[in-house]
């Protein structure tokens, strides 16, 4: 594991420090399709975090529920990005759990916004299953879980 992990995004830069202390053999999740995945997750993180900061600072009162849910989405995206960049078996499991939570969140919030639009005077990141984000929010956790399941067991033995 001598190759540099990543550079360019904030989350990735944090991994620079983690990468140095990386023990040889920690499952590298940012490789192959994993790079595309981590890139999409970092884009969603930046988008959701900046959006929810703006919403909460500027106009939280207009739609508290929608804006709180956007903030939850932002935290989930940021955490998954971090675990993917960090790598390792524990991080892989944590990311898997979070992807499942994310999928559940997208489905619940998506259904909720479709059934009861009046509860949401303003849209959230996950409104209508993430239609405002080209449905990436609903596709991302599915591909994420597939990737994380596939990269299981490529730990010390194979690295």
């Amino acid at each position, binding site marked *: 594991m001598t190759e540099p992990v990543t550079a360019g995004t904030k989350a990735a830069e944090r991994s620079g420090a983690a990468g140095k202390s990386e023990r040889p053999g920690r499952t590298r999740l*940012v490789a*192959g399709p994993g790079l595309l995945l981590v890139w999409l997750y970092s*884009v969603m993180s930046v988008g959701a975090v900046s959006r929810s900061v703006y919403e909460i600072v500027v106009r939280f009162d207009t739609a508290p529920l929608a804006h709180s849910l956007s903030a939850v989405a932002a935290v989930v995206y940021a955490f998954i990005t971090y675990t993917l960049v960090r790598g390792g078996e524990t991080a892989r499991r944590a990311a898997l759990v979070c992807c499942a939570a994310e999928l559940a969140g997208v489905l619940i919030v998506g259904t909720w916004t479709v059934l009861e639009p009046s509860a949401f005077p303003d849209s959230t990141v996950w409104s209508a299953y993430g239609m405002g984000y080209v449905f990436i929010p609903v596709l991302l956790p599915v591909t994420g879980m597939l990737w994380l399941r596939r990269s299981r067991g490529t730990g010390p033995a194979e690295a």
Partner: protein
Amino acid sequence: MAKATAAAAGPGRAGARARGAVVRNSLGAMLDALTVAVGVAALALVAWCGFAAYRDQPTKDWHFIGMAVVSVLALAQLVVGIVQLARGERAHDGTTTFVVYLIGAFLSVPAAAFLSLTERTRWGSATVAAGAVVLAVLEVRLYDIWGG
């Protein structure tokens, strides 16, 4: 409308106001043109790097030149956008949103480019293509944020 009020203000100032309006209009046209240009260039980059990913190839020097061209266009857009704000023009959906989107648009392709340097496979190309898709989407949003 700017010309009408300028004419009412008197002949001496009318000329200066009219010149100001011309500069403002041409900068505004430049911003719109840059938004379209960056959007089209981003879509071209999507096709190019997407094709490389399809052919199972990593990003090569020519791809990086393409990314640089798109990034320079996005930087020009960032500069013109900020100049427009400094001149007192207002974005329809708010200054903060406009500036954040401009910065995001400028950073999206270079960030993907750096990532593709660490992944010398088709997935590096796919990441750049995804970054360019993000840029194209941001350009559509920027067009709305500026013009309403």
